[in-house]
């Protein structure tokens, strides 16, 4: 327990207003040194609020949070010297060069000028931006900016790196680059706390995952443990809208595990403990009931299913604004038009 690098106990944060929102509602979390800790949750789950409390940007109303044993409320300045934060928006300065940006943050971590400059150069090399080091950041691509932002966080050699949705809005190639970079960091001994809406990202990177919703911890474990909690394979069916209710009631009586109506994606999700046999049985029953599915898939559970099972809704909803929140769980379904849900 003493090896906890982050320990959060009973954390509460309420945002006032006419309808007060309990963004954090008695959250408990323990994170051990080393590795990537993924923080998953739907929009408004309290992820960003937690990040802000941990990085001393926001005071909590109750409870405590400690980083490497230091209380964020009592000794914020000591906590800041131990962390590096990359927020949701790459906070790099457009009119400074890449090198100047990293050097600036190094100076603000208290490094002497020469040392800050040298370290900035090393970091730019590490993230593959040496060639662009002397260009103003306004000429950088989105992926380059994110990598630069990460380099800026690393300049103070933080023990904990906090990444708030580090790949939001990036194209797949840039996202994979960033993942590789985070992977390297972890091998070097940095502990990473990462929030993400991309389940694929959590699956690929995180050694442990905490699912939070409504400001509370819903579940916690390794990605495999979380998937195991949801059970074995799942059967996914798309049926015509008119047949939906009939299909659901038919499947309800078939086995102990009930189907879930995933309205956002217009699909029915059925646990399939017997794999292919469940599939055959389900199709027979539907056929007998006069329902012909438009699409059928039998697959392993994804973190997305974990999410649905734990929070009652998908991790991501196709809302149209913001980056496309699509993870790997969706890759084989992309023939389905997005936003088919109503």
């Amino acid at each position: 327990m003493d090896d906890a690098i982050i320990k959060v106990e009973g954390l509460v944060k309420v945002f006032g207003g006419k309808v007060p929102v309990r963004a954090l509602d008695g959250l408990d979390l323990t994170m051990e040194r080393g590795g990537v800790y993924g923080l998953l949750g739907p929009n408004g789950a309290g992820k960003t609020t937690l990040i802000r409390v941990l990085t001393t940007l926001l005071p909590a109303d109750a409870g405590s949070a400690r980083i490497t044993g230091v209380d964020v409320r009592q000794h914020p300045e000591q906590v800041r010297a131990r962390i590096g934060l990359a927020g949701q928006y790459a906070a790099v300065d457009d009119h400074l060069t890449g090198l100047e940006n990293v050097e600036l943050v190094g100076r603000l971590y208290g490094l002497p000028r020469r040392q800050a400059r040298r370290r900035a150069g090393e970091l730019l090399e590490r993230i593959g931006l040496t060639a662009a080091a002397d260009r103003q950041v306004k000429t950088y691509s989105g992926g380059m900016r994110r990598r630069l932002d990460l380099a800026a966080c690393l300049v103070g050699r933080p023990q904990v790196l906090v990444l708030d949705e580090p790949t939001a809005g990036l194209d797949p190639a840039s996202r994979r680059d960033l993942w590789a970079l985070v992977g390297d960091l972890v091998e070097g001994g940095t502990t990473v706390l990462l929030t993400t809406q991309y389940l694929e990202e959590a699956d690929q990177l995180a050694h442990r995952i905490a699912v939070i919703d409504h400001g509370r911890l819903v579940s916690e474990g390794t990605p495999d443990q979380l998937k195991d909690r949801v059970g074995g394979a799942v059967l996914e069916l798309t049926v015509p809208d008119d047949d939906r209710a009939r299909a659901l009631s038919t499947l309800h009586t078939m086995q102990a595990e009930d189907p879930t109506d995933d309205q956002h994606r217009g699909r029915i999700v059925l646990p399939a403990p017997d794999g292919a046999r469940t599939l055959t049985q389900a199709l027979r029953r539907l056929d007998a009931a006069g329902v012909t599915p438009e699409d059928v898939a039998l697959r392993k559970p994804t973190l997305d299913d974990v999410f649905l099972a734990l929070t009652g809704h998908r991790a991501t909803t196709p809302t149209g604004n913001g980056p496309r929140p699509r993870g790997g769980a969706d890759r084989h379904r992309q023939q389905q038009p997005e936003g088919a849900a109503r």
Partner: protein
Amino acid sequence: MNATAATPTVPTVPGALARAVSDIAVITRRNLLFTLRLPQVLVLSSIMPVIFIVMFTYVFGGAIQGALPPAAAGRYVNWLIPGLLAQFALFGGSGTASGLAEDLAKGAIDRFRSLPMAGAAVLAGRTLSDLARSAVTLTLMLAVGYGIGFRPQTSLGGLLGALAVGLLFGYAWSWVMALVGLAVRSAEAVQAATYLVVFPLAFTSSVFVPAQTMPGWLQPFAANQPVTVATNALRGLVLGQGALPPGRTVAGQVALALVWAAAMIAVFAPLAVHTYRRTVR
């Protein structure tokens, strides 16, 4: 407890002071680099004072000339320049609000606040870089004024003193606007608010015309509001005692302008720093 690797030492008081000075210098330099690399902004913000100088001198100068005290040596431009210096020192200080609002919107403030740097350095660096920009603007105004006939009637020392008082006054206002920028958070809204506040203050002051020529009900305000005080101080330093309204002395007006500046800083700097420490994007 698990405070193992690389525990940062708690800085001593002189250490903390040195760090704060270094942090302020780093932030000031960052902001000035922005200005240097976006020269359009500096050029555009220098055009307005030049337009004011030229427009008022040539368009209104003839009409106002008669109301001027003899100390202006018969030239409206002599009367106008010290007042405009005070006005645009205020304008320069107002830039602090939009600069901070922009940093806030871009997430830079969140980043700075997560770093182990001095709490007040972001605001101090911002006000200082805005002061430097104002110094450039005011110097340019003096040069343009000189070109169209402005001549200080006292001494070079008086002129430099006027510049210093104007800049200090603008710097103090910059702290007021730091609080405004952090509270309003939108660079556009802040700009609009700046015009709403600075123009009425300037036009109801003695910047353009002597306050004694204004209607009686306005005079008590016009003769004592801070922009008038600053303008009188600058005017006295540049044109001498004769340029001031009856009952006002140069030393008195300079002292009063400095008191206003000190009071603005004493009240608003702590408020702004307090707000900064609670501001998240």
